């Protein structure tokens, strides 16, 4: 401790900027980690609370995916002796048309039984109408809204609000206002309750329910009741406690969580490089001090502990600041992640609060300190090994020794061979990831040597460009590879990470574009909802024939698509008129015979699956697919595998006749409309809207659907841009750090340059060129390693969540943009150090040793 105070503190005070940058590396890594986990937890907790508020006292919920089920199921549930109460529910998302209020989740419930499950805790209104549900039921336009929603919109009892229904805009009368808290607080108050049978009518459900909420009879274990209901209802139903929704939501967030995890890990690793760099430089610069200490009797352990102590202090400060920064960032990230709830409910999740879990604080602190200690370990060991006699002599310590270079080369060769072996044997994920880690290790081991080689290659060009400034900048890097190698390595890693994720995004984008081109070719789409991802709004089964009668329409293909559970995971089932589809869509299958698979599927003798479904669920051509339906277990052989991006978790395509038979439902939610040659889409659209006047029908042009899908796909790029931002931040941090040291090291050299006539701008140019050269070397290495990293990222994507074998497409435009940004950032990063270089006393600089 005394050494820390006597030696480290003065050094730290003298190099405040460098220490700030070192700490910034840890702040960034820990901050991202804390922010990401806190945001995820906050969103999941809010989602869980919302699910709990909606579910009330229900212990089990029965659903059949998004398809819903017939009313008769309710009787079968109520007949079960284990069930105390079973209440039907219809859930619909409706637009209020009130500006800025978004959608309302309408909960259609049976008032006669529901109050034993949910407490509406009315704020105002005639309590009698709920005490006597018949009064509420007798008025089908009755609506209860939450207090927060009512206050926001200045609504009172008997106020009327518009809602988009299956039959166009209808007005509803507010007959109750729920107190804030409980159900009334779900979705920030964007929730309303109405009678279930009225909901069936206004939202076009026919005689079907979306869900049944169950209260278990006293004394009966919930699991026993679940098993009894499963036996009674068969395989087509999902019977689970309300908390299971949270797990499904968590599964939906998994791709995003993984991406964030990888980003924060990369940030920490890169932070580690920045710390390593700072300590390596500190050890080099403090060799005389270490020599004196050793000469005075300090043991190797004491010297090592001195540097590790400094690392622990830097780690602690960085972690604490990182936790603070993470807490600030968490809310922003949580708002973004919260948007995912709209994919399930159509209503954006309001965040209650973003609390930082004490366990995350401890984990962040430990991780930050551990990272710092790990990064400082090698420099601390080097410091402990300093020979006191040599240390007191002047000389060069920045040069990589021939022995070290050879050792690195041999280690890199070994790691590369092992990595290749892992790739060859990489069926198991563990071996694959070990191979990936070894590939990264190879790149890191080779980075200093390759960086040196690249700098030597570009020196003549720099010298030609600026004879003094260019040559000096390149020489500075060549003479001190140790000073720049960590920055170059950090840049290389971060650029490679962006290339990896950017390449995946680009590949997905290309594949989606190709899929859109070949599959989404109808001229018009007729839907019951303007929101393309909504599956609960439907049109009657006669709508297809009605549209085909419209002048100018050649063919209408009715589609019923919705999510259902497959082995506990929600997947998309698309029921379509396959015979018609085969006439219009000619995409090359990934597996199976194109003609045969359409023929068998149209005949109801098979199903086609998407390659993502095949990859993620481990299902292949010829395997039997088991889908639970309200009529029992549907078993169909897989007759073809095709590319389909309709859903991230995979798609099963069946014929509409199979759906009608097994789901006992002839509704449709999308109708693909092909026009006769020469027909004007705008005119036909107007005709369709006229034919369906008074009904909730939306007609979209092909271009609008394409744009929507590409917009959703663009969300992938949002993450890439975040990572590019991190890469640039690293470029700035690392380069500022390196240049600060470089300028200190070269103080005398720069002084000489000024003494013999170098103008300030010429000195600035030297520093700028050095910075841009570091950036350039980092970019060259990063883009090269990025090519390999992209391969691993694509494979990781396939194995973990997309299930699709994406084409390898190097993201050229992104690489170009990244190169420009990093070089620009390098130049900006050099402005401060360049000014530092031209300020100060020339006399002191010339005397500086």
């Amino acid at each position, binding site marked *: 401790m005394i050494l820390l105070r006597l030696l480290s503190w003065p050094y730290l005070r003298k190099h405040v900027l460098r220490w700030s940058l070192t700490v910034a590396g840890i702040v960034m890594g820990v901050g991202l980690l804390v922010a990401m986990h806190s945001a995820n937890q906050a969103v999941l907790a809010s989602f869980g609370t919302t699910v709990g508020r909606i579910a009330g006292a229900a212990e089990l919920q029965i659903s059949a995916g998004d398809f819903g089920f017939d009313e008769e199921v309710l009787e079968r549930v109520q007949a079960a002796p284990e069930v105390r109460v079973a209440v039907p529910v219809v859930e619909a998302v409706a637009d209020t048309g009130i500006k800025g209020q978004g959608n309302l989740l309408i909960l259609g419930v049976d008032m006669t039984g529901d109050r034993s499950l949910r407490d509406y805790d009315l704020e105002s209104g005639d309590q009698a109408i709920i005490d006597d549900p018949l009064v509420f039921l007798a008025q089908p336009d009755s609506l209860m809204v939450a207090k927060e929603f009512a206050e926001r919109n200045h609504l009172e009892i008997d106020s009327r609000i518009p809602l988009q229904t299956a039959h166009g805009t209808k007005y509803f009368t507010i007959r109750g206002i729920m107190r804030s808290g409980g159900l009334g607080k779900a979705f920030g108050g964007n929730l309303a309750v109405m009678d279930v049978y009225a909901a069936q009518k206004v939202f076009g459900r026919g005689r079907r329910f979306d869900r049944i909420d169950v209260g278990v009879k006293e004394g009966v274990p919930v699991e026993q009741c679940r098993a009894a209901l499963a036996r009674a209802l068969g395989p087509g139903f999902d019977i689970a406690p309300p908390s299971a929704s949270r797990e499904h939501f968590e599964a939906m967030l998994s791709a995003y969580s993984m991406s964030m995890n990888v980003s924060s890990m990369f940030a920490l690793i890169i932070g580690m490089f920045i710390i390593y760099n700072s300590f390596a430089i500190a050890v080099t610069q403090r060799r005389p001090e270490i020599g004196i200490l050793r000469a005075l009797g300090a043991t190797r352990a004491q010297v090592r502990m001195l540097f590790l102590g400094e690392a622990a202090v830097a780690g602690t400060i960085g972690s604490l600041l990182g936790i603070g920064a993470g807490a600030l960032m968490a809310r922003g990230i949580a708002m973004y992640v919260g948007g995912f709830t709209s994919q399930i409910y159509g209503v954006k999740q309001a965040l209650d609060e973003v609390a930082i879990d004490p366990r995350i604080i401890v984990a962040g602190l430990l991780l930050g300190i551990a990272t710092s200690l790990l990064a400082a370990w090698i420099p601390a060991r080097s410091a402990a090994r300093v020979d006191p006699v040599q240390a007191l002599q002047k000389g060069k310590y920045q040069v990589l020794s021939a022995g070290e270079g050879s050792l690195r080369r041999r280690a890199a060769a070994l790691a590369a061979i092992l990595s290749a072996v892992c790739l060859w044997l990489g069926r198991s994920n563990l071996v694959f990831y070990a191979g990936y880690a070894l590939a990264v290790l190879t790149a890191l081991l080779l980075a200093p040597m390759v960086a040196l080689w690249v700098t030597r290659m570009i020196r003549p060009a720099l010298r030609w460009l600026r004879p*003094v400034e260019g*040559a*000096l900048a390149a020489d500075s890097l060549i003479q001190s590879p140790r000073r720049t190698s960590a920055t170059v390595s950090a840049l290389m890693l971060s650029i490679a990470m962006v290339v990896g994720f950017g390449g995946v995004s680009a590949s997905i984008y290309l594949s989606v574009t190709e899929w859109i081109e070949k599959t989404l070719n109808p001229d018009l789409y007729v839907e019951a909802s303007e929101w393309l991802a909504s599956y609960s709004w439907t049109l009657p089964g006669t709508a297809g024939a009605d549209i085909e009668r419209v002048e100018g329409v050649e063919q209408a293909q009715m589609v019923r698509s919705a999510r259902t559970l497959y082995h506990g995971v929600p997947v998309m089932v698309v029921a379509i008129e396959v015979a018609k589809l085969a006439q219009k869509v000619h995409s090359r299958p990934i597996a199976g015979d194109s003609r045969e698979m359409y023929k068998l599927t149209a005949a109801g003798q098979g199903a086609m699956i998407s390659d993502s479904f095949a990859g993620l669920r481990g299902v292949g051509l010829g395997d039997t697919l088991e889908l639970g339906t309200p009529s029992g277990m549907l078993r169909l052989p897989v007759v073809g595998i095709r590319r389909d991006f309709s859903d991230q978790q995979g798609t099963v395509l069946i014929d509409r006749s199979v759906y009608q038979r097994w789901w006992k439902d002839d509704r449709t939610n999308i109708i693909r409309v092909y026009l006769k040659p020469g027909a004007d889409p705008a005119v036909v659209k107007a005709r369709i809207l006229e034919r369906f006047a008074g009904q909730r029908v939306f007609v979209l042009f092909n271009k609008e659907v394409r744009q929507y899908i590409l917009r959703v796909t663009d969300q992938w790029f949002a993450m890439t841009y975040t990572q590019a931002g991190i890469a640039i931040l690293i470029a700035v941090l690392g380069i500022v750090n390196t240049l600060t040291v470089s300028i200190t090291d070269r103080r005398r050299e720069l002084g000489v*340059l000024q003494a*013999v*006539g170098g*103008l300030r701008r010429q000195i600035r140019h030297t520093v700028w060129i050095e910075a841009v050269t570091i950036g350039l070397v980092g970019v060259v290495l990063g883009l090269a390693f990025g090519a390999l990293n992209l391969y691993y990222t694509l494979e990781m994507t396939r194995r973990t969540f997309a299930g699709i074998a994406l084409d390898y497409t190097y993201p050229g435009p992104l690489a170009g943009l990244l190169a420009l940004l990093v070089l620009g950032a390098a130049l900006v990063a050099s402005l401060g150090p360049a000014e530092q270089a031209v300020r100060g006393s*020339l006399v002191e600089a*010339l005397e500086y040793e």
Partner: protein
Amino acid sequence: MIELAGVSKVFDGKRKVVALENLDLVIGRGEMVAIVGPSGSGKSTLLNLIGGLDRPSQGEIRIDGSALGGLSDDELTRLRRDKIGFVFQFFNLLPTLSCLENVALPLHLRGWPRKKIDERARALLDLVQLGNRLDHTPEELSGGERQRVAIARALSIYPPILLADEPTGNLDTRTGAEILKLVHDVHDRLGATVLIVTHDATVAHSCPRTLTLCDGHIAGDERR
């Protein structure tokens, strides 16, 4: 050529150090002057002020009639670039550059054409008898050779003023004598005004004029 009027230099650190106090001095064109005195007497400070590497706390310095006080940093640099050549005790060569590149450095900084720079640098290295070491880096040279390169660099612009701070201080006696001979040679050939800060009596005696400094004052001004 060089005029100092009431020049003082005070270093404000934890305690105030007066390096030069109220100095008046005139050095004519083509003079060769040795500046001697004990350590801390202000010799190097005087050289730095004349060379425009530092600014006086008080008083005025004129080079060729131009007052340095009103010049900006870049103007001061231009003055150094065009009129002053420096030779340092520790050579201050750039270790990564070859002999040729080190000598060419001030010329590149002036933006001369490459061909002309190359010719001048080679000629100067021939002059200091290092024409056979053009591509060597400083670490491949002996101390005397390094100082020769430094002198060649200082002469690259044919400066009217040559300032040398202990040019032989880091060399053995024989090499020191050679360097001194070279400086005299340059003085004779180019007619430059030469100021040499030295502790070495031989060097001081070789110069026609010797200034002795003591505690920031001129204690003696001897002409031979």
